Structure formats: C-alpha cells, structure tokens
C-alpha cells in the first residue's frame, strides 16, 4: 500500500519532469544558437615530433587508454571541467564523443584500477601554459588563443 503511494509519487515526479524537458530543450536550442562556437584545437608540447594525429588515437589519449604518443613519449593530458563550454565543444567537434561518455569511460577505468583521470585545469589559458611547459603534454584551447609556445595538431 505504502509502496503504491510511493510509485504514484514517482510517476507524478516523472510527469513534472516531462514538462521541464520541453522547457529545457527550448532553452538549450536558444543557448546554442546564441553561442557562435569558437572552434577548438588540440595543442601539444612544442617538442613533439608530429603535427598530426588520427582521431582514434586522440580519443584513446583523451580517454586515458593510450599513455605514450608519439612512439615512447609519455603523454600528459590536460582538460577543463566537464561543464566548461570549451570542454563540450572540444569533445563533440574534435573527439566526436559526448562529454558524459568521456566521463563514463574515465569512471569505468578509475574504479576498476585500470586507469586514471586526466588533470583538470581552471581555464584554457592555464592549459596553454601547462602544455607549453610540460614535455609530452596535450590539451585544447580556442583557435584564437594559440601562441608560439605550443604546437597545434591536425586531425588525420
């Protein structure tokens, strides 16, 4: 009896959520239309010997599976918070992975002892500085933020 009431409560909760969906979808579309996304680029430490990387390898690196690139160079990955718009743009357009999928992939590895999280930084400026000064480092910034101290990697 008690449970039936609880189920009813959950159903009503779901209903009220359904209303929010439409509102949220609308808002989302508006927000996306307003944000003329500045393209993101992958950057690497200037000492790297390559200027291009296959998308699958990049996914494996940002998915924290592949720890060496190119050849035997240890990689160090820098990212922003999951909810940073730059992170979402980078994930979706460059990696072509939804940010929550990336998070899931990290969680699956960290909580089974198979991998670690990438290092999270506060801003793309910080990523720019750390990538420039850390051998083997990779990260992402807005295309218009790139400077001489990092190398932009093409996707091949």
């Amino acid at each position, binding site marked *: 009896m*008690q449970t039936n009431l609880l*189920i009813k409560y959950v159903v009503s909760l779901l209903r009220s959520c359904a209303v929010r969906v439409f509102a949220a979808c609308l808002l989302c579309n508006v927000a996306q239309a307003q944000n003329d996304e500045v393209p993101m680029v992958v950057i690497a430490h200037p000492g790297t010997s390559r200027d291009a990387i296959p998308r699958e390898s990049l996914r494996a690196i940002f998915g924290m599976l592949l720890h060496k690139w190119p050849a035997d160079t240890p990689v160090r990955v820098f990212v922003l918070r999951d909810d940073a718009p730059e992170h979402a743009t980078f994930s979706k357009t460059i990696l072509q992975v939804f940010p929550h999928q990336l998070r899931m992939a990290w969680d699956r590895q960290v909580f089974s002892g198979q991998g670690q999280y990438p290092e999270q930084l506060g801003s793309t400026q910080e990523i720019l500085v750390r990538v420039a000064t850390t051998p083997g480092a990779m990260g992402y910034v807005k295309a218009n933020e790139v400077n001489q101290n990092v190398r932009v990697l093409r996707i091949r």
Partner: protein
Amino acid sequence: MYAYSGFAKSAVTVALIGALSLTTTLARALDLFDGDLQVHGFLMQSLINTDDNNFLGRSKDRFSTDFREIGVNASWRATPEVQLSAELLSHRAGGTDDGDLRLDYGLVDWTPYSSESGRGGVRFGRVKTSYGLYNKTRDVPFTRPSVILPQSIYFERTRNLTVSADGGEIYVENYGGGGLLSASFALGLPHADTESARVALVGLNRPGRLESDLASNFQLLYEEAGGKYRVSLTAARLDLRYKPGAGDSLRAGRLGLTPVVFSAQYNAEKWSLTGEYAVRRTSARDFGPFFYNGRADGESYYLQGTYQLAPRWEALLRYDAYYADRSDRNGRDFAAATRVPAFTRFAKDWTTGVRFDVTPAFMLRAEAHRVDGAGFLPAQDNPNPLALRQKWNLFMLLGSFRF
C-alpha cells in the same frame, strides 16, 4: 528502538561523509608524485522498501538501510607502462553481504606494447571480472544506470563469486577504422568460499564448503564513434567443487557455470538504449538425492532506456527478465520435483527511476520496481520459500557522494 538505530545509522553516514570530504582535501594535498598518484572514492546509502518479500535486508513494510557501499581507491602510475591500483570496499547488502572491509581489487597493470594504433598488456593480482557492460564497476553507484543493476544478469545474490578473481588478465586494444576494439582473457580464482556464494549455489545452512578451480573469462568489446555504439560478447567458465561437512545431507558434488552474454548499447546526446542477453548454462551433479541435480540453461535479458530530462535530471525505464531454466520458464517442473514455489524460478521486473545530480559529486536516485516472480531474491533475506509472494513491489531511494 528502530527509529533510534535508524538515526544512529544516519549519524554514522553523515560522519563518514565528513571523513570522506576530509580525505578529499588530503588527497589534493597528497599530490606527491606530480599528479601520478590519485585517490578517489565513493559512499552510497540507500533506503529499500517492499510490500512483500525481503530484498537487501528486512524491507517488507519498512525501510531497510542495509544496502550501503563505501569504497576508497588509490592508483599510482609508476611509469607510462606500469600502474599500481587498489581499492578497499565495504559492501553491505542485506543478508548477502555484511559490509566487512575487503580488498575489492589490487593489481599491477603492465602495458609493454603500445603504439599509435593500439596497446596490449597484462593485469595481475586481484582483478575485476569482465562480464557484460557493468560488472567491473558494479559497486560504484555513479557508473550504474539505476540503484541496482538489472538482477537477471548482475545478481546481488552471487556478487562475491563474480565480482573479481585472483589471477591475471591479458588485454589488447586496437584504435582504428573509426572504433575501438578490445579483447581480454582472464584466468583466476574467484571467491567461492564465502557464505553468500554457498547459499546462492547450494542453499541455506549447509555445513560444507565450496572450492573453485581456475575460472576463465573472455570478453570482446567494440566501440564505434567514441562510444556511441558499444557491443560486446562475454563468455565465462566456472567449476566448483562441494566438500561436504559433518552430518551433511549433500554429497561431494560438482557445479559448472558457463554464462555467455551479448551486450549492445546506443548512446545519443540526451538518451541511451541498452540491452543485454545472457544464456547461463548451469550443471549440478553428484550432490545426492537431496539436491536438484541436472543441467539447465538459464536465460536473462533486459532492455533499458535512459533519457536526460533536463541538465541534471535523468529518467530510466527498463524491462528485465530472468528464467532459471528456459525449458521450464514457468518453473512448474521444478516445483513438482522440489515443492518449492514455481515462481522462484523466474522474475520479470519493470523498473522506472529518476536520477538527480545535485552536484557533479552528489547524486540522488528514486526507483520503483514492479516484479512478477521471486527468482533473484536471496534466501538469506527470505529463509522460508513458502512465505514468498509472486507479485511484489520494490521502492528504493539512494544518495551517493564521490570524490
């Protein structure tokens, strides 16, 4: 009295959350190896209520607080080829697990082969078992789609037997052609001699013990387009021997379990669809006249959809079906042979739920199940099979924190 103990438990939980927050600060301070050492963990407390039958504690017409998970892990990437990791876990689950602190995994992951297009290596120590899409992190609430995983495939009942094994796992991964292909093969000793494995496999109050041979496990996983499509195949083999105790009504029997699981998942930006199908061949022989000897092919499957209602809200709908023997789906033959109710041989479970991420580190969940059948209920929580009811409702609330 009950109200008081409920309060005491909540107080303990709050204290633990406090302690974990402290650990977070500590972990940040513990950045000794330039970020190569990471400490993470989680804490989950749930409330379980059923209108009939007990699940995860004494839940009938009351709220059981006996489903609780606390884990802390550390990993150290010693070199780009070698990672050391370990997790301590307390998993309390009604009568099937007392929450004693255990080493959930403790392993060395060595990747001698690595190139732009793939890598290969070996993990040895206590390694989590690959099984379907969720088993490796089955006790981590944030990685599950619901409060409890679909019970037809991820039984709470036999968890200790399937969660990890002491041995090794070889793995290879290939990145190319638009996807990720990985394969793993593991050999190890599962944790067979635990009370919960014994009860699940040979029944309550047996004086003997179970021993396991080396168990093998193979998984093939393909992910297309960064995890948009995921398909996998798992096959495992477990052989167990029963050593009768003093005055045992059972003889030295043997059990063989050969599950095969097919999994498929599609992930869109706002919704995802997951299905898994398993055939579980079980054989029991030489246990003597007081046991249901014989061979049966169990069948399990579920179909699950999740939908992101709003940025921090997610809804879940799932149908999950379990049959202990697919040639006796309604359990009538079994009931005729054993006088145990036929509906203990299947369970059909409709689940709806919502998840709310209060913050990225704190999650709340509510979930309702309408179940037909008692197939996945543990005997420890329901010692008398004749007191079971066929149709029952289950309601669960969960709060989980992680760092």
